């Protein structure tokens, strides 16, 4: 574990130094990253230019969901987003190089091409969240204030688990790396909208099967003082850390199984 973190830090640092060799390009790609996600929010603003509420939620509350989901996903993407490239490495055989190095493979794959430009997404999400916090009338209590950072960290943890599980799946599916996008980017997009918009079955699915609802929907409903989705009891708003730990453990197991089943493609 300590080994892994050290390897991660070293490889990540190396990639940062290498990106910083081209500062202008770094600035441009960070801005592009910011702009891509900002445009996403412009889409929501355009929707709200024509309607007052969406699924019963006004703009500031949707912005609250959007900001939380973007920041949580942004941290996961920054930390281990490069794992979606694992399929490439399996296909062209460069994963073998990582296997012979004296550092955990997971750390190496996660830090591979560490891209600081992904801060762009986090900044954008944080800005929207800032707007939301100033515009929403929240009845703050110490518990709610405490829940905010907990929500972001656990949310990032849950998304990390999705990335790791997706990477484990790529050992089996190689070419099918795009499936992962449905859960990572798709999940982040889903969580930007209120749960009341979606069909009951879909909400059930992302609560009990793939617990993305714990990233924002459930804790956010508590903070905003809205009824819990699916009529769940209020205490589930505090479950995200537990859910994150469980997801990470499961995805870790999946990763091990995947790595063990790996067979090099050869030359």
């Amino acid at each position, binding site marked *: 574990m300590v080994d892994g973190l050290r390897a991660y830090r070293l490889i990540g640092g190396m990639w940062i130094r290498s990106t910083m060799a081209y500062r202008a390009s770094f600035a441009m790609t960070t801005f592009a990253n910011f702009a*891509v996600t900002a*445009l996403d929010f*412009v889409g929501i603003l*355009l929707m709200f230019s024509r309607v007052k509420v*969406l699924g019963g939620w006004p703009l500031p509350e949707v912005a609250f969901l959007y900001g939380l989901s973007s920041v949580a996903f942004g941290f996961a993407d920054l930390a281990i987003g490069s794992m979606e490239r694992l399929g490439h490495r399996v296909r062209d055989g460069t994963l073998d190089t990582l296997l012979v190095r004296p550092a955990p493979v997971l750390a190496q794959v996660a830090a591979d091409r560490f891209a600081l430009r992904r801060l762009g997404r986090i900044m954008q999400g944080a800005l929207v969240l800032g707007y939301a916090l100033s515009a929403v009338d929240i009845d703050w209590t110490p518990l709610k204030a405490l829940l905010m950072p907990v929500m972001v960290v656990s949310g990032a943890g849950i998304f990390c688990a999705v990335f790791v599980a997706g990477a484990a799946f790529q050992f089996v599916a*190689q*070419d099918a790396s*795009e499936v992962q996008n449905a859960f990572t980017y798709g999940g982040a997009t889903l969580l930007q909208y209120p749960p*009341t*918009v979606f069909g009951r079955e879909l909400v059930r699915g992302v609560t009990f099967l793939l617990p993305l609802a714990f990233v924002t929907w459930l804790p956010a409903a508590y903070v905003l003082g809205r009824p819990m989705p699916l009529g769940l009891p209020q205490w589930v708003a505090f479950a995200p850390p537990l859910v994150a730990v469980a997801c990470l453990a499961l995805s870790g197991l999946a990763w091990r199984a995947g790595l063990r089943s790996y067979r090099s493609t050869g030359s």
Partner: protein
Amino acid sequence: MGSGRLYAAVVAGGFRRYATYRAATAAGVFTNTVFGLILVYTYLALWDEKPHLGGYDQAQAVTYVWLGQAIFAAMAIGGGGVEGELMERIRTGDVAIDLYRPADLQLWWLAADVGRALFQLLGRGVIPFVFGALFFPVALPGDPATWGAFLVTLVLAMMVGFGIRYLIALLTFWLMDGTGMTHMTMLAGFFCSGMMLPLNVFPGALGDVVRELPWSALLQKPADVLLGEADPWGTFAFQGAWAVVLLGAGRLLQSVATRRVVVQGG
């Protein structure tokens, strides 16, 4: 006649090439279906709140979502056509080999891109569209003439889409690195084609401008023909004009670029 057969062979080759990756195609179909599901619910909520938004009823909005997911890959709305490969060939200098081949550079890549688009239309488009039509209320035309006109708009959309991406790819001759431009293309594609939100929902002047840009030929115009909201002949003219302008500009830029080409590498 001989050159016609050559480009037909390139089209067929492009088709077969993309057809090789079955797992990737299945993955793409799955992803498009999931994104379609997410979008369709948000649109349903939007149209619930404001029926007849942008002149569409709810069933038309739902059809629009699934059409977008179905042709997203084929029209390379977010990039991902053959232009990435062309950029790479320009950067590495391999394009010099393409230039001394007895084939036209633009037509060659157009043919390859059409082959790719045709495969992705069938391979990635049909299943999400049928899924959407089965599980959600959609508005599909009953008469074959509308379907025929819709197919024509798709072919024209392929031309416009290639026209945009070819121009972008040629800029690599000057900028060498295509990453920034690829990002920009994706940005413009998502926003201006109506992938994010139908262009007829865009408010005021922004809507007026964005509906006249070439990107609207990729999704919004074909959708309007399929949904019976636009006159096919006017749409053909709009798409055809943009195709001519963009492909013409591409030809012009190509002749400038090839006159100053410096082969990199060694």
